Each structure stands twice: as structure tokens, then as C-alpha cells.
């Protein structure tokens, strides 16, 4: 939400007006919470939770267990009280929060709290201190209230995410989507503490609200650690891929762009989020096996001998050898191993054809060839995107899977493509590859020897 578009402002305005129109008319004497202490305590609890969210791996989203405060308010204070507790998000102490975000969050949590309270009362939940005879019957309306809270909360967030465009397809967006089920489950799970706070109010007064902070913060800590490790994982992988690319000046950034291109295709053909994530890692690592090819072969200017060509043909297998032990989806491994197979069965290392080639490999092959053609090589300038697309179309059916080619072209039109910067030839000729094994327009020349 770094830049707020007009559409997003209209959306936020609509949410604010909805919140105000739902809450304001019911703001009469008898709907107001009768006791102020629970209201203040729960507002404080909400504020503490909301001000210290766990940044998730995706930068756009953060998770906080504040729903337990809102749901405790539903039981102790009723719908209006819950809406007031949710509105505390307006004065969240989170650093670097935009005004638009503040306003939206406040209105959203107020609406979600009110909806939860409405469902709770509607299903016969008793507002006030729960007493022993209320159990276990009270659990049904309370659970429904928790579901209502999650639905309104996540639904409104989903809406605002649709309004704010991302300029690129970063890994962030994918991770946000794949962690959505976990977010929903966490919110539902922590809702239980709302009922605990309410039930313990008669026994230990407001201290239950203090006590729940301990498990809440422990979970927050674990989620934070998870996100941190996930970021570290991606960053380390990228750094190591870069190390592999230092062998060849012209292929710098290739892995990252192939990863991105594979992600574009995967999303275009509607792959599941976890598979998309896996294919992006596979794209990143697809050429790792080039390390096993002697540098002098990679940099040879003349035609290759058969042994040298065999060494190049082996690089997908070498790559597999390296990454095999990573706890990846097996599909990702297959993608790395077969990314040089061709639809007509003339590729390597195994000469698979058509549907025998794993889906991941057919995706990576297209992104790989496209990036190779649109990058500068020592023997030619970078091709324009239109030319490269033309080449892909030409190869569809013989080299590439036509469905993947079309998906890629459609995705390019929709999301755009950042071309690599034009590489000036390096001063030191040691790190230049004279032939690119990925370039379909300039196949490797092999000495015929029979």
C-alpha cells in the first residue's frame, strides 16, 4: 500500500461509511457498554496486539492476534463494544503506517467486531459475564461469531489488495496467498482466548487479559521466526545462484529472471500457490549444474567436440545431483532435470517428448529460452521482445509446449517484463561465454565426427 490509488481511496471510503452507518445509529444509551473497565482493558489489549504485529514474509501483510480482544468484547460488551475495540486500530502505534491504512484498518476491525457481535447475539449468545450454566452451550454462538469476524476481516482485506496493484510479481505476493489458510486458521484458533478472557473475568478479573498475552506473544515470536527464516532462505538461495553466475559475465541475473518468468507462466495457467512457489525455486536453480561443466567448454568459441557437447548435455543431471537433498517438491527436481527436453523428443538429457516431459520442465524451458534471447551475448546483441516472442511461437510444437508459450505471451502482455540491462562487454575476457546453450536461435555447433 505504498501508493494509494483513487480506486483504493473510494474503496476505503466505502468501508468507512459502512462502518460509521452501522455503528453510529446504534450508539444510543442502552446499546453502550455499561461497564467501562472491560472496554478500556480490551481496547488496551487490542492496542498492544495491533501495535506489535508479526511481519509475514510478504511485506504487504502482517499478522496480529488482536481478534482475541475483539471476541472477548463480543461476549462481555456486545456488538457495539466489539466495534469500539476494533476501532482502536485507528490509533495503532505501529511505526510507518499510512493514514489510509489507519483509517481502513479502524473501519474494517470495527465492522468485523460488529458483525461478530451481531452473529453472537443473533444465535442466542448472552452478553455479559458468562456463568457456569452457560457452558458448553455458549460455544456455538461464540464459534459462529469467530467465523463471522474472520470472514469480514479477511474479505475486506482481500478487497483492498485487489485495489492496490503490485507493480511486479515478486515472491511476496505468492507467499501472501499461500499463507492465507494459515492466517485464517490462526485467527480462528486465537478466537478461543476471547472466550477464556470473558469466562475468567469473574475469577481473576482483568488479569486473564494479561495472561493471554504470554501465549499470544510466543506464537507471534514463532511466526516471526518462521518469516525470518523464510526470507533468509530465499535470500541465501539467490546469493548462491549469483555465485554460480559469476562464472559467466553475460548470464548474470539469468536465474532470477527465469524464476520470475516461470512464476508468470505458472500463475497464468492457474497453478496452485505452493506449486508456483516450487517452480520459482526450480527456475532459480535450473542451471546450477553448469558448475559441473568445465569453464573452458562453456567459453569455447569454435564448434564443440562430441565429448564437450556431452558435458554440456549433462548439466541438468548435475543440477539434480546438487539439489536432490533439498526438501523440495519432487516436481521441482523433475523441472530442473528436464528443462532442456524438447516437445519433439530431440532434447536432452533423456530425449523425452510431449506429455512425457514434466509440466515444470515445459514451463521452465519457455522462460529460459526467452530470457536467453532477450539478453546480450558476446556473439550478438539482445533481441527485442517482439522478435523473441516470434521465435517462441516458431518453436511452439517442436521445441516448446504451445500451451506454455501462449500462457507466457499472455502473461507478458498483462504483467510486463523487465529486460535485463544492456551488458557492456567486460574488460576481462575470461568470464565470457561464446555460445549460449539456452539460445534456440543459435544452436551449439558440434563437430560431426563420423
Amino acid at each position, binding site marked *: 500500500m505504498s501508493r494509494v490509488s483513487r480506486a483504493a481511496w473510494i474503496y476505503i471510503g466505502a468501508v468507512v461509511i459502512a462502518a460509521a452507518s452501522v455503528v453510529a445509529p446504534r450508539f444510543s444509551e442502552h446499546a453502550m457498554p455499561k461497564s467501562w473497565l472491560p472496554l478500556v482493558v480490551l481496547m488496551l489489549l487490542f492496542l498492544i496486539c495491533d501495535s506489535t504485529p508479526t511481519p509475514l514474509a510478504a511485506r504487504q501483510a502482517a499478522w496480529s492476534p488482536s481478534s482475541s480482544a475483539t471476541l472477548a468484547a463480543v461476549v462481555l460488551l456486545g456488538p457495539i463494544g466489539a466495534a469500539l475495540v476494533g476501532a482502536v486500530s485507528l490509533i495503532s502505534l505501529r511505526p510507518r503506517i499510512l493514514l489510509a491504512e489507519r483509517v481502513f484498518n479502524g473501519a474494517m476491525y470495527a465492522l468485523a467486531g460488529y458483525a461478530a457481535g451481531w452473529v453472537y447475539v443473533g444465535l442466542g449468545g448472552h452478553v455479559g459475564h458468562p456463568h*457456569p450454566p452457560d*457452558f*458448553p452451550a455458549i*460455544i456455538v454462538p461464540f464459534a459462529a461469531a469467530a467465523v463471522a469476524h474472520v470472514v469480514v476481516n479477511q474479505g475486506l482485506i482481500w478487497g483492498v489488495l485487489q485495489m492496490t496493484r503490485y507493480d511486479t510479481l515478486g515472491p511476496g505476493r505468492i507467499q501472501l496467498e499461500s499463507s492465507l489458510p*494459515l492466517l485464517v*486458521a*490462526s485467527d*480462528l*484458533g*486465537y478466537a*478461543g*482466548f476471547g*472466550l*477464556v478472557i470473558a*469466562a*475468567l473475568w469473574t*475469577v*481473576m478479573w482483568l*488479569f*486473564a487479559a494479561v*495472561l*493471554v498475552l*504470554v*501465549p*499470544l506473544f*510466543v*506464537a507471534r515470536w*514463532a*511466526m516471526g*521466526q*518462521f518469516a*525470518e*527464516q523464510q*526470507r*533468509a*532462505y530465499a*535470500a*541465501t*538461495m*539467490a*546469493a*548462491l545462484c*549469483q*555465485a*554460480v553466475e*559469476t*562464472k559467466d559475465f553475460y548470464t548474470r541475473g539469468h536465474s532470477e529472471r527465469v524464476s520470475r518468468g516461470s512464476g508468470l507462466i505458472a500463475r497464468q495457467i492457474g497453478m496452485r500457490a505452493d506449486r508456483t512457489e516450487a517452480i520459482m525455486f526450480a527456475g532459480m536453480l535450473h542451471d*546450477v*549444474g553448469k*558448475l*559441473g561443466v568445465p*569453464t573452458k567448454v562453456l567459453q569455447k568459441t569454435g564448434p564443440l567436440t562430441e565429448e564437450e557437447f556431452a558435458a554440456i548435455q549433462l548439466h541438468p543431471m548435475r543440477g539434480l*545431483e*546438487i*539439489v*536432490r*537433498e*533439498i*526438501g523440495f517438491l519432487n516436481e521441482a527436481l523433475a523441472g530442473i532435470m528436464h528443462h532442456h527436453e524438447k516437445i519433439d523428443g530431440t532434447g536432452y538429457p533423456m530425449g523425452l517428448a510431449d506429455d512425457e516431459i514434466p509440466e515444470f520442465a515445459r514451463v521452465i524451458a519457455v522462460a529460459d529460452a526467452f530470457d536467453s534471447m532477450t539478453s546480450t551475448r558476446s556473439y550478438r546483441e539482445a533481441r527485442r521482445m517482439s522478435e523473441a516472442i516470434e521465435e517462441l511461437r516458431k518453436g511452439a510444437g517442436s521445441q516448446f509446449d504451445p500451451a506454455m508459450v501462449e500462457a507466457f505471451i499472455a502473461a507478458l502482455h498483462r504483467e510486463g517484463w523487465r529486460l535485463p540491462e544492456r551488458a557492456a562487454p567486460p574488460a576481462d575476457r*575470461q568470464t565470457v561465454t561464446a555460445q549460449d546453450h539456452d539460445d534456440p536461435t543459435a544452436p551449439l555447433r558440434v563437430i560431426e565426427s563420423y
Partner: protein
Amino acid sequence: MAIRQAEDRLPSWQAMDSGRLLLLVAAGMLVVAALARTAAAGSVVDLRTAIAFGSAIAIGELLRLGLPGGREAAPIATAAALAYALLIRVHQLQGPVTHVAALQVIAVTAVGMTVGAMPHIAAGRPAGVTGMATRLVAVACVAFAFRPVVGADVIRMRDHWWVAFAVMAVLVAAGWLVEATIGALIRADDLHARFSVALWDEMRLQLPLGAAAGVSAIMISFAAEVMGLAELVVFMGPLLVTQVAFRRYSGIRATYLQTVRALARVTEVGGYVESGHSRRVSRLAVAVGRELGLAETDLLDLQYAALMHDIGQLSLPDPIPGGATVLVSIQDQRRIAELGADVISQAGVLDRVAELVRCQSWPYRGHDPEPPVGSRIIRAANAFDDLVGGSTDRDRSAAALERLRLDTAVEYDPGVVEALTEVAAKRLASRLE
């Protein structure tokens, strides 16, 4: 087998290993006594509550989770068992529950744990007897200690809930401490680590989950008065979320280590170093680091750095013959270390690891500033492996150690070489068996 190995080690380890036996015997005796007493009584006091808590313990044991460093925890089972031990009154049932004897608490916990462990055994996973015994002993301590306090009628929930709370908090903390101490004793024995270091690591790693489970246990025992047994369902949600968060955390941590390990192999596949070199150096370095009493976080950094210590060689146009960095010139060693550190610091999250890789080429003496201990360990372990390789020959290993020892005047840290000698001796001993 594990016990026989232990007999060949230093005498001090022997005492430690009988500690594990002692734990199992103690837990076994507790269980036998608890079951015998419950059977003798002819019936379980307050059967419904016992079944409810026993089921919660079984579920918790079924959903055990692995923590970093091969540890395991069962926060849901721990919380349920502690709560049962601290239970004062359940609302549907009139009258206090505290006449449930500590031995019944132990019996219910043991049965719940056993039921929860069954699916693990059926699926061919380890039963985790040691972990269960540790948790059982901790719960038993809390249950036995709580009875006299309640019996003295100090606690009247409504009037003095904070007295009850304080007592419970102290007991839960003590129980956690018992668990951490037993865990550390066993770990120190298994890994040849120092007990003080192991205890500190154990406490640091178990604190978050222990705090969550302990506080939940106290809340469960209080909430039972208002919510009755339905509370167990309500508490299951938050505890499950906490558990899932931890599971994901330790999962990605494991994947991360696998990735570093796999990518460290690029140097081997590329023919830059001898096959298996990175892994051997890292195993050796971690063993030496443990011998020197490094804490677990430092050991993890050391492991990463040792795995990637040769990654700088990727930037060389041609592989060094045999990949043995100990044989190339000082300038080349420096350059490889610098290049490797640059690659690693690109990640932006492994700065300490990069630092260890950068300083691995510094001699122990005469360099200002002094290289960090991790770098000194990698330097020695790398040199040892370059000279010995995968060979298990005693003479070759002795010759390599002698060469390192001769270089302690400048190149290698004498303390590190000493520890390396220890580690090599232990390895030879365990191989000879």
C-alpha cells in the same frame, strides 16, 4: 549399542549415561506405582475429568513437534498434564477435585502419553520414550508438590485467586526447570557437550514453548471452575495455532540447512574440491566447537560457514588441483576466503557466517584483530581434512595432527588443535568397535 559405545568413552560420560537409565527407571517406577495404586483403589476418582484430560494429553502426544537441534516437545500434552495436576475444581462436579491423588495424575498422564505414542510407533517413528519420561517426571514433581499446599487449605479460589496463581506459577516454573535439566543432561551425554552449555541452550530453546504451555496450564486449571470440561476444546485452538507456528518454523529451518548443504556441494560437483570435503569439514568443525563449549547458535553459524568455506573457489577460473586450499599460497587462500565471504554476505542475512568465512585464512597469531574462534576452528578442520581426506587411517591422522601441532606457533590455535586431537581420538575409538 549406544550404551556400549559409551563405555569406551571417558569415565565422566559413563556416569552421565547411567543418568538416562536412571530417568527411565524412575519414570517406570512412578508409572508402576501410579497404576498399582489406581488399580488397588478399584476405581478412578472423577472418571469424566480423568478421561477428558487423558484424551487431551494423548492428542498432545500425537501432535508432538520437533524443535531445532533434534529436540522434541509436546506443548499441548504438557499443558494438559500440568493443568490436571493443578486442577482445583470443575464446575459440573460439586465439591473439590483435589482429593485426586498425585498418583492418579501420574497414571492418567502415563496412559494418555502411551495412547498418544501408539500411532507414532505404528507409523514406524521413534516412540520418544526419553522425552515422555522427562515430561512425566516433571508433571509428577508438580503434582506431588501441589498437594500439600492445597491440603493446607491456603487456597480459596474466589477470595485469593492470586495466592493460588503465585503457587501455580512457581510450581510450573520449577517443573519446566526439571524438564530442561533432564533434557540438558541427556543431550550433554549424547553430543559430548558441556552440561552448563547444554543447559543454557536447552533453557533458551524451550523457554518460549514452556512459557506458553505453563501459562495455558494455569489458565486451564482456573477456567475449569467456570467453563467445565468444555474449556479443553476452547483451549485446543490457541495451543494448536502456537504449535503450527512452531512446526513451520522448525520445518523451514531444516529446509534452509538442507539448501545450504546442497549448495555447498556445487564446489564438489564443479570439481573444485574433493567430494565430501565440505561435509567432513563441517562435521569436524561442529564436533570441535562442541568440545570447546560453543553455544548452539554459534555452532549453527559454524556449521553453515564450514559448509560454505570453499564457495569462493567458484570465482576461480580453474580449480585448484585436488581442491586442497592448505597447499596454495597465502594470497590465494586470502582471495578465496574474501570472495566466498562476499558471496555469502550478498544474502544479507548471514553476516556472521560471512565473517567466519572471511577470517578463515587469518593465522592465529600475528594478525590484528585476532580471528574469531569459529574461523580458527574452520582453518584447522579444513587443513586436517585436506591432509587426511576421507581416510580412516590412524597413522595418517596422527601425522596430520602432528603437522598442525607444529604450526601452532603461528598458524593454528593450540586450543583448537587440542580439541581436534580429542575429537579425532574419539572417532578412531568408535570406529574400532
